[in-house]
């Protein structure tokens, strides 16, 4: 890296000078902070990394607190240091090897090198570690080298001297134990973390009130308690909305016809046209083309619930070949003969294995080095953006059918918890401005992803050392990427900023919060997650200003139709390539946005003052233009 006189090295002066050490996130800021909420910000190296001004602040603090600064991290409540080792070398792919002190706690890995100015800090939650491998045997110099493969698009390499005392465990063996608590019979740190926040994030989502917000129950839809004890379907929530005229008994028979018992249930209803988005799993058609009268009647009932249209669209997220292949395993898709008035559309989105492979390829081309001259063709060969495009295009078709066609849609893939969740939640994001607010987005995740059983535990593999598990897949990351693409196309339509999305992804892995633990609502209830852990939303909602998009305008009734052509999609550099110091934004955009907010507040004040003046004057001198002040009194947003 150092001797590359090539083009990529050109810009780095500027960037690296501002962000002196690559993974720097000096812990000193943490020690300076008393408030738990802001200290939290730098808890994970990743989240604080992201925002430049925090880094700047950290640097300033670092100067002041250099003397008092310890080699140890500021520990979280109930975090315990497990091991500490001197003379560890960290091979930074960007700035070269550094020697320092490594600390491992039950939550994090903390590496600090004091020799550099400013000091070099690496602080990551153990949850992001996907694999620890010993690289090679003891070399001639007696060094032992370890590689850490991380889930968040980076790899770390450390080395230490061969230990003289053969009985002593290497610090990396300690690390392995705590990085994979589930495999080692330990508890995930979220269960120990005892931070108290002013907000309780577990109260963000309540199924009944969310249905009520949508106007459910109404004359066509009812809320059923048939799954109260998760007997109908163990991956569905206890509260679901179904058509009024289908009794609970029939639901059970339909459950038998749908894979994993995941019957069609309501995700979203259009407030005006009553067109609905419903989700389910594939029908158990099989090679023999089995049919279910109840299921057919059920879909008819969904269609009938919407008086505007006499058609029902069934969106099968899979490529048609895959859907057909599923017949061999007893699954399949709805035949248009059996389901009259229904039209089946395949959305060509590939399965979790393809997505995993695509992200792996992406990691290969972005970390640590990027080849400039073939960057675009390399990116193309990962197909990552193409997958993003297909997902967005699918969601767009759903949103368009519901909004413009006033037609109800049924969405499913094979099991209805991966691609289906992506599609319904993205479509809802396009259709309903509520989900574009910070709280609304939390509700969306809680509802479409968590309560409807996206298998986070399996897909992420929290605390599990089995990194080759075929169930792991970046389905949720893909969804967040799609959301980011939407925010790029509609920068004023979302209340949250990029930092919010990155924070969610960071804590998807960190295992600090209970939000993304377990596979289903049933498991979460069983594990008493809300009682025993802290919700990510507690943390976020306690410091909303960090996550607010200053450009946000509340266009409550607008539907977003993004352009899904690959020409208009971008790679999310701020997430996938954020570890590369040469990719850091040249300017603190975050900061600039805050200044804009201030400017806006100032202007608003000015408007108010002038308004008062005008009203006073027009009261005294009856001008013929007296009408206009009243018009301008209306808040600015309304006549956008």
């Amino acid at each position, binding site marked *: 890296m*150092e001797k590359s*006189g090539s*083009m*990529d*090295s*050109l*810009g*780095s*002066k*500027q*960037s*690296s*000078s*501002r962000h*002196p050490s690559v993974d720097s996130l000096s812990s000193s800021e943490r020690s300076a902070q008393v408030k738990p909420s802001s200290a939290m910000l730098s808890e994970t190296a990743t989240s604080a990394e992201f925002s430049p001004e925090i880094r700047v602040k950290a640097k300033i603090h670092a100067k002041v607190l250099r003397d008092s600064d310890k080699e140890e991290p500021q520990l979280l409540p109930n975090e315990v240091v497990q091991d500490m080792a001197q003379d560890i070398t960290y091979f930074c792919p960007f700035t070269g090897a550094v020697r320092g002190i490594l600390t491992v706690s039950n939550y994090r890995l903390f590496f600090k090198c004091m020799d550099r100015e400013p000091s070099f800090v690496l602080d990551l939650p153990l949850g992001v570690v996907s694999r620890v491998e010993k690289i090679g045997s003891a070399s001639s110099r007696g060094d032992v080298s370890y590689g850490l493969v991380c889930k968040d698009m980076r790899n770390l390499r450390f080395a230490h001297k061969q230990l003289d005392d053969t009985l002593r465990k290497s610090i990396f063996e300690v690390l392995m134990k705590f990085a994979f608590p589930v495999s080692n019979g330990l508890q995930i740190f979220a269960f120990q973390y005892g931070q108290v926040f002013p907000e309780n994030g577990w109260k963000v989502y309540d199924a009944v009130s969310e249905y009520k917000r949508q106007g459910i129950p109404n004359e066509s839809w009812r809320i059923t308690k048939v799954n109260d004890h998760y007997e109908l379907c163990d991956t569905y929530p206890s509260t679901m909305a179904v058509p009024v005229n289908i009794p609970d008994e029939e639901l059970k028979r339909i459950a038998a016809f749908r894979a994993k018992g995941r019957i069609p249930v309501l995700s979203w209803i259009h407030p005006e046209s009553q067109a609905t988005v419903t989700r389910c799993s594939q029908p158990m058609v099989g090679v023999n083309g089995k049919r279910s009268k109840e299921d057919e009647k059920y879909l008819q009932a969904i269609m009938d619930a919407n008086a505007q249209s006499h058609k029902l669209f069934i969106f099968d997220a899979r490529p048609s070949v895959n859907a057909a292949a599923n017949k061999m395993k007893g699954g399949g898709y709805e035949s248009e003969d059996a389901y009259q008035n229904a039209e089946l559309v395949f959305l060509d989105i590939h399965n979790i294995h393809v997505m995993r492979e695509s992200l792996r390829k992406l990691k290969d081309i*972005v970390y640590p080095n*990027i080849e400039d001259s073939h*960057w*675009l*063709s*390399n*990116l*193309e060969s990962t197909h990552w953006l193409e997958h993003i495009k297909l997902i967005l295009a699918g969601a767009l078709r759903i949103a*368009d059918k519901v909004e413009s066609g006033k037609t109800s849609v049924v969405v499913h893939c094979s099991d209805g918890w991966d691609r289906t969740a992506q599609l319904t939640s993205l479509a809802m994001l396009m259709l309903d401005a509520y989900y574009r607010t910070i709280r609304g987005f939390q509700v969306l995740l809680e509802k479409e992803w968590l309560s409807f059983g996206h298998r986070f535990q399996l897909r992420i593999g929290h605390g599990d050392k089995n990194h080759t598990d075929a169930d792991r897949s970046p389905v949720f990351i893909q969804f967040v990427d799609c959301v980011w693409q939407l925010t790029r*196309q*509609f920068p*004023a*339509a979302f209340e949250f900023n990029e930092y919010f999305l990155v924070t969610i992804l960071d804590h998807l892995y960190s295992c600090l919060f209970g939000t993304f633990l377990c596979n289903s609502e049933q498991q979460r209830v069983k594990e008493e997650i809300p009682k025993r852990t802290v919700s990510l939303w507690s943390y976020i909602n306690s410091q909303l200003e960090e996550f607010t998009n200053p450009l946000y*305008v509340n*266009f409550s009734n607008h*539907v*977003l*139709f993004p*352009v899904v*052509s*690959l*020409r*208009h999609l971008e*790679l999310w550099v701020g997430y996938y390539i954020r570890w590369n110091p*040469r*990719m850091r*934004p*040249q*300017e603190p955009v975050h900061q600039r946005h805050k200044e804009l907010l201030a*400017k*806006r507040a100032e*202007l608003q004040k000015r*408007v108010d003052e*002038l*308004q008062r*003046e*005008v009203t006073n*004057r027009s009261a005294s001198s009856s*001008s013929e*233009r007296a009408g*206009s002040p009243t018009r*301008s009194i209306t808040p*600015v*947003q309304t*006549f956008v």
Partner: protein
Amino acid sequence: MRDEEPDMPRARKKERMLNQSRMSARGGDVFGLRCLPGECVLQRAVMVRKKLTAREGRGWLSGTLFCTQFRVAFVPQDAPKADDNAETILLGDHDIALASIEKVVVVGPNRTKLVSPNTWLKFTPEELVLYCRDLRVICFLFDRLTPDAQVIEITHTIAKTYQPLKPGAMLSFQNAALGSVEMKQFLSNRRRDAHMNWHETAAEWERELERCSATGWRVSSVNDRFEMSTSLPRFIVVPQKVLDTELKKSFAHFNDGRIPRWCWRHPRGSDLLRMASFQNNIYHEKDDIRHLELILFGCHSSVCVVVELGEELPSPADIQLAHGRLRALCLGDISTSVTVPDDKWLSTLEATRWLDYTRWCLKKASEVACLLRSGHMTVALQEAEDRDMSCLVSSLVQVMCDPHCRSRLGFQSLVQKEWVAAGHRFYSRTNFHRENDKEEAPVFLLFLDCVRQLWSQYPARFQLTDDFLLALHDSAHLPLFSTFLANSQRERCRRTQNVGQCYTPVSGWREPLHPDSSLESPDPPLPPVWDWSLQYCEQRQAAFTQPVAQTPAPAPLLNGNLNSQLDARRPSDAIPGSVFLLSRGVFSCPVNLLPWRGGSAGGSISGVYRKSHRRAPSCESVPGLERLLKALSLAETPVKPELDPYEPLLPLLMGPCVGLWRECYHRGALHAQAFSHPLSANHRHPLELLAGEVRRLQEQLAQQHPADDSRSAHDANLNHNANNSSSFLFSGSPGAAAIATPAPASGQAPKENANKHTFLSGHASDTRPGRANSKLTKSDAS
């Protein structure tokens, strides 16, 4: 509307008169098209819908479509009635100049057809698509209510009138726009923007020297009559130490007489020079050598780095090829509407190499910027002809290093200095006349793209916006501006002044640009592109600069002190210093870098050479220089950019950091969906609305307490000559008199947002003429 039209073919005149009478029978201005003097409507179609791009908010806008002999105009149905007090605008927001149309395509039921002047349509088009040279694609949809006759007629009219450019067509286009007596008068009355430096007079060059605190340099008028070099400007900046008589002998040593000339001084004292390649087969006299050394080393006798621009940068032919591929990629195959499949988009984009070329240029400019930053040296850009890449690199370096060049006026001055005055062959490179396709190369567009890349990485460090860059990009495709219609200052002089006034040396004489033009009426006077009011309304011009005030520009005298330090270590004039060649990121000192120092000549050259040889054991200095470049790649002591405003803006050039200029190349919108949605990326933001509202309230307040009218009117006159002359223009033509009578109410209808930037940045210069509010804004702001 005027009746006389001097240079229109008779047949068309007849046709036009016919139309005109038809129009006037219905009331000519009812349709709301405000014609230029002499412009008349050839054809019109009602109930047409224009497809809006993502930038305009997507969706459709319905209105009336016109074709005149100068433009295709579209007037939206609910457009505010033409405001006669408004500036003269050649092209409205929805208008397309005929000269910028590249292809006309109609879409009928199940078919698409490219329309040429001879095409006879066998079907009634449903859609009319105009592909423009500046990469816009404009799409009009004919309603079922549009009379079929109108649809076919207007399509034919457009196809017949737009014509692929050739000398005659361009001239008639220029005449249609600017040829009328009123227009000529109007243009000749327009004053040049005195806030920018045009780099045309000696005084202006002096001003630039002063701005850069470039001591040790002087403005020489040795080329005043273009005797020394036909492509150099009349005034050039050379070292003070060199007399004009000495200077004269040096021209022969450089290709086309383009000797090393000063461009810019970095505040830390380094000077940026540019020159053409050496004439090698020439005998170097002893005295000549002394002068050449002096000219090349300028004020820094110790170190001179020659940056060779011939390698590592694309050639004009490469640029042309890349741009052609990019156009094809972004617009698709026009006649067949075949586009590159989405899944091949990225690799096809890469294969155009356009992004590579922008990266190369930015890299080269960054290297030069880093050299300049170190101070105490002369950096001379050398290119064989010194008229393409050296324009690009020298101006890019200045954009990176000099905050002044990132303001709109500073940027315009920069383009004047490094492109227009320096003799970039705009005329040949743009190839409007299709005379010489080999010469065509959009070097200037590549430069704009490079600036856009920098801008996108450091938006807050620029006062100008990408809207400005886009406007300049589009204007460069319009054959109306003197800026882009000549190859050198000499040609421009010949055009603007009377030919007789310009001395023409026997050797450098070239045929007039348009041999046929002299037979007809004299060419209309061409305005410079910087006269933005000719093209853009105030509201759109307001978007050329950032709304929020930037960090105040630093005091320009920062450099004075730094210079003085250097003077102390300057060796005596007689001793030449070391020369290095920077090529492929490596420094070297080849023996024959300066031909007069070459080994073979060594015998004939006395002490000067040997001394220089002694002083140039450059191997030890090379590492020092390389460290300067290395500073690019390694972390140094963090310099807060706020502390040193001259710290160059070095772009990130890794693959993901260099992107396509979507706002420009993606306007084609072929693939964009027609979903109507008001909330696009460029939707007006509450902040702007607030600013507009503040303004409106201020206006209301102004009406509440009437100001001293005579004084404010005076203010407006002073500031806004242009407005007055424009209304003068219209009062001259009889037909327009009725329209030109100012409707008192119309000016008061507050155009929100029109001046938001001036409001926000604190200095009020309301450009609305004759209104009390301009005074009020001023008093409020102060």
